[in-house]
């Protein structure tokens, strides 16, 4: 097998790295164990070299830094241009992006400029016997998984769902840091950024929660969410939802799990009043333990559940809350700090 060069785009906004870049470094490291070769982290922005050490500790052999005031904040056209140039110089066989808002805007534009293939929202990546990338992509709301290949064009590009791959625990590794030359000032290159408005997350981020209590159409009304929130708080978890409650305005869109929402892999997922449409399931079916509560004994979610309860959540959850409270260690409160 030919030695490979795997590139990972490290997303950052305002100097804060998105976890998905670190997750992809972990995956790239795993893939490179098979084919040998190097893993590069592509980082664009302003004053970002402080991250190099961490990126090497998390699996990068080379950190390619494009440090320029023209690259902060993120703008699509300058980023495309710098990455296209870096790909021509460093010639990665594989180039991975997070399937984030930034990644799904940027990766397709870059793929078109490089005239290569790109697969979207991958749930898994493998190498075939020749070292070519196999990209597992959900389609049709997750009812189908396609394996995509890009046999002739390079780099083989993919966006990967955040939260699917595992970050490596930082270890002491050696690596090199290369500064990319950014000469253009990119003024007037596409839309002007007037303001980046960062909202403080008020609740436990879904993707980081060990426990997710998700509600669906079956919750019936906005008031029903209170008990879900109580249960989630008691278990130091987060509340999630399917699309209908989001469309009804019962919960914000940031809580949506599934193909057009978040992917979660908690230790415990509890689906309450959720029928189990495949669009939702694709975002939670890798949870360690799936518990489903639904009044309909034929609900599709029961087919993928470890524990099934046929019944009305209004009757099941109140005694469950009581039961959990009696088992909590003394002094423990219902509210938990979100993990860092």
């Amino acid at each position, binding site marked *: 097998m030919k030695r490979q060069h795997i590139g990972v785009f490290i997303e950052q906004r305002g100097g804060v790295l998105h976890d998905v870049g670190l997750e992809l470094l972990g995956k790239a490291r795993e893939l490179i164990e098979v084919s040998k070769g190097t893993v590069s982290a592509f980082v664009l922005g302003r004053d970002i070299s402080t991250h190099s050490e961490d990126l090497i500790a998390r699996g990068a052999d080379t950190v390619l830094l494009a440090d320029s005031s023209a690259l902060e904040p993120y703008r699509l056209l300058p980023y495309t241009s710098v990455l296209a140039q870096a790909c021509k110089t460093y010639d990665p066989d594989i180039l991975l992006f997070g399937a984030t808002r930034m990644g799904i805007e940027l990766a397709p534009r870059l793929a078109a400029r490089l005239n290569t293939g*790109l697969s979207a929202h991958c749930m898994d990546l493998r190498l075939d016997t020749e070292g070519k990338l196999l990209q597992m992509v959900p389609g049709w709301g997750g009812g189908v998984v*396609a394996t995509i290949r890009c046999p002739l064009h390079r780099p083989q590009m993919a966006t990967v769902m955040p939260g699917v791959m595992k970050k490596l625990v930082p270890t002491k590794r050696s690596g090199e840091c290369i500064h990319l030359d950014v000469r253009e000032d990119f003024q007037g290159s596409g839309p002007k*950024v*007037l303001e980046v408005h960062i909202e403080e997350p008020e609740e436990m981020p879904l993707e980081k929660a060990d426990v997710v209590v998700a509600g669906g159409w079956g919750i019936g009304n906005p008031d029903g969410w209170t008990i879900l929130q109580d249960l989630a708080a008691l278990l130091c978890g987060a509340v999630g939802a399917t699309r209908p409650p989001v469309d009804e305005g019962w919960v914000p869109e940031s809580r949506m799990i599934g193909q057009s929402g978040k992917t979660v892999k908690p*230790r415990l997922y509890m689906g309450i009043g959720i029928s189990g449409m495949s669009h939702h399931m694709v975002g939670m079916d890798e949870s360690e333990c799936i518990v489903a509560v639904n009044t309909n004994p034929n609900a599709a979610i029961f087919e993928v559940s470890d*524990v099934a309860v046929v019944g009305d959540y209004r009757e099941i959850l109140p005694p469950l809350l009581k039961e959990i409270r009696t088992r909590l260690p003394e002094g423990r409160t219902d509210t938990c700090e979100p993990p860092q």
Partner: protein
Amino acid sequence: MKRMIVCVKPVPDPKAWDRLQMDPVSKTLIREGIPSIINPLDKHAVEAALEMKDLFGAEVVLLSMAPCDAYPVLREVLAMGADRAVLLSDKAFAGSDTLATSRILAQGIRNIGEFDLIFCGNFTLDGSTAQVPSQVAEFLDIPNVMHVCDMEIPNTQSLLLTQKIEQGTVKLEAKPPLLLSFTKDANKPRYISFMEILAAEKREIQTWDNANLNIDETLIGLKGSPTQMADLLLQSKQRKGIRLTGNPEEIARQLADKIHQLGII
């Protein structure tokens, strides 16, 4: 403003996706019997174009690459108030991945002629790749913005856009020519009246094949697609569920036991 082009796509109605079958030999999806609807987000793109038209006046042209049976869906979108539609349809287009599809759409846009703005839905329900907007813009060599959740139009020379990101929003100022793709928060698609449905019957739907577009056939369809499907699996559902029985208190106790076993409490 002279012209706005809105890319729209008929997609299989998600309500019928449970009927999706796969041909075990050819590994292709059997779509027969699954009705088509317009991709829901595309209606927001059409609405955005019509709002511009209401303000500044301009021709709104729908563009779609789809099989010929897409006419009824295009008629329905025309009834929202678009002026005409162009359908790109040719056997040579079949099997195109997003890169080849974007190349075909970009050529369709060039064939329509001058434009100020191109609007799309942020993603389609079927493939959900969300790759086509950025790729069409790249082929046309114009800027693009995805995830547009709000648009203000102070004048025809500049647009104020709000882009949704994970951590919040980004405010952008952009000038035509430009391609934008919209999320569902951007606007509320207008209600279609019966009169408009009748009026839409008279509006033109042109069909162009590759004789009209004249793209090198090695760059489109399966041949022109860098990505290939190696395998297709209908998702199997493997977990074997234990059904809890008893009165609510007994069920609650068993559930709490399970949560305890997982080490959560």
